[in-house]
């Protein structure tokens, strides 16, 4: 058997992946101009964090981290529904989804 397969993946790899996902989310949030892409970037950040939660939960054999992930997913789902509703409302009002043009608190 390939020794690589029997060996466990080191912790740092998971964390590195998690950090990469999170950073991609941050960069996407900052540079993307489309509101939906920005929204997706947020989801990316959340999942990056989720990955590190799961990693540590596995490492320390603690179930709390995994429970926390469920919570984050739940909140993310709620947020997605609300956020998408807002996006639709904004699009109806402004006929655009360019983030830079949505810079007023009022319509």
């Amino acid at each position: 058997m390939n020794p690589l397969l029997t060996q466990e993946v080191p912790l740092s790899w998971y964390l590195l992946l998690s950090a990469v996902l999170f950073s991609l989310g941050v960069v996407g949030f900052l540079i993307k101009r489309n509101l939906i892409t920005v929204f997706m970037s947020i989801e990316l950040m959340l999942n990056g964090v989720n990955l590190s939660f799961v990693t540590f939960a596995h490492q320390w054999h603690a179930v709390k981290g995994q429970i926390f992930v469920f919570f984050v997913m739940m909140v993310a789902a709620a947020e997605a529904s609300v956020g998408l509703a807002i996006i639709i409302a904004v699009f109806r009002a402004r006929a655009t989804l360019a983030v830079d043009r949505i810079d007023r608190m009022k319509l």
Partner: protein
Amino acid sequence: MNADLHLWLIPLLPFAGFLINGILGRGLPKWLVTMITLLAPLASFCVVFNASLGIFGFLPAFNSLPYVETCPLPWISAGLLHIDFSFVLDQLSLVMLLVVTGVGFLIHVYSVGYMGDDKGYARYFSYLNLFLFFMTVLVLAGNALVMFIGWEGVGLASYLLIGFWFQKKSAADAGKKAFIVNRIGDFGFLVGMFLLVANFGTLTFSEIGAKLNATPAWQGGVLTIIALCLMLGAAGKSAQLPLYIWLPDAMEGPTPVSALIHAATMVTAGVYMVARTHVLFDHSPVALGVVATVGAATAIFAATIALVQNDIKRVLAYSTISQLGYMFLGCGVAAYSAAIFHLMTHAFFKALLFLAAGSVIHAIGGEQDLRKMGGLRKKLPVTFTITTIGVLAIAGIFPFAGFFSKDAILYAAFLQGTNGKILWFVGLLTALLTAFYMFRLWYLAFMGKPRSPEVHAHECPWSMRGPLLILAALSICGGWIGIERFGTFLAPSIGALPTEAGDWRLEIILSIATVAFALEGWLIADKFYRRKPERPAQYVAALPASYKLLANKYFIDEFYGTVVVKPLLAVSKFFLEWVVDIGILGGVAWLLGGVATFAGAILQRWQSGNLRSYAAWLAAGAAAVLLFLLVPWATVLANLPAIHLGMTEH
């Protein structure tokens, strides 16, 4: 055995009157305002009278003096200094209280008639009650600080009442003048109090007296300075040289106010204060000398000005200053009870004269110029009679009240060695001048033919005549108690009269001299204004310079105006307003505002509304926090030289 005398009621009742009339007075019917304002001083007088009955032994509950009433709550407690809010009733304050509340009540009654048509009826009476409140606090004070409250308060009441007709610019200005000139005196009083605290650690009169009596060898030095500071305060309040200038202008107020505040009670507060702190003066011959000299100088100075004044109230104002000078002369020769005696009789006859003058002014429709009066004897018989009594009393003719007290002061002055003889002679000369200008007033106003025949004069109502009659009776009999009995009564609180060097023959000779000088003044006035009415004009023509000097009151107002007021105004205008106010304060305000505006202009760029810029700042902040938490800054900083060296080594 001591009964409770309820001293606190004495000031509090007029204060209640002030509050009710001051707050609600405009809405209350006039008769109610009158009732409240009259009941307050009458009730105060009753409390005082009750106390005096107890003290003179008419009531079984005999009270030994001094009787102290202290507020149970601590008032001021700072380190070693403890000051209680305490009232003291002793012989001195009892006499003062009887005068203040008694004469005060009479003048309240008189005011009901005098101010009856004024629009500010309730306001006037609330101020008058406020004055009585502060005056009784001043008199009852057991320590200098409580006295200072009353002292400032009567100043306030005086200011309010001088400027009562504030629509008139001269009245408003006179009020301000009185207030500002009094500040100079109050400065002296304050410094004196600070020195008392520094040297005695207390402001209570009885404790200061006890400390000084325990150390009879302690003379002069800092005591002189304290006494002179207090004298400055007294000179301001009691209109003595050089701070007398406010009193003649204070005649802008209603005439009953002039009678109550600027003749009978408030202006005598300075004399009262000197008598109250007499132990300090007794320990400082220099201060006593200053007091006596200031008193004598003021007496003759003001009397000479009064000779040529044509406004009836101004003549009386200068005569008040002159009589106050007599009182200070009495204090200065350590004859405090003679000074208080004169204070009392003066309160009677000067209040009488002012009220009579008010009744004359009231009768002929607001005219105050003596030259336009004349022949009022027939039209105002009652006023004429009582003015005559007042004039005889102030001139010091036997057996009216003024004779006894003035004689006591002059006699005490005569016994004080060579300087005392000079002071005595000045006093004697002043007596002559006093008789002259008072009879001049009398002749001009009441004798001869009416100079303005079209004026229809009418006698005043009974509310004004009643107080006049009582005061007239007091002006006749007020002195009959005699200085010996009066002095003996006051001796426990202000010391016995220094009479050991005299004998009764000398006293009688001096009395005759005083009366002779007064009669001489009368005779001259008679000659000038009845028998040879052309005489005054001849003298004016013969001595134009002297007349000009007197008629312009020695140009003292002009002198102060040039030396003090104008430089002060210039400094205020050019330095305080332009440099300090506009330059420094305005500059600082402008700078602060400018910095805030500038910072705001920069910081507002943050608030762009741009979502991505907010997110970028958020990320930057998070990065900064991470940097701060993850890098071990303390270690890095501590090892910075080592790292640097290590880098250079490699």
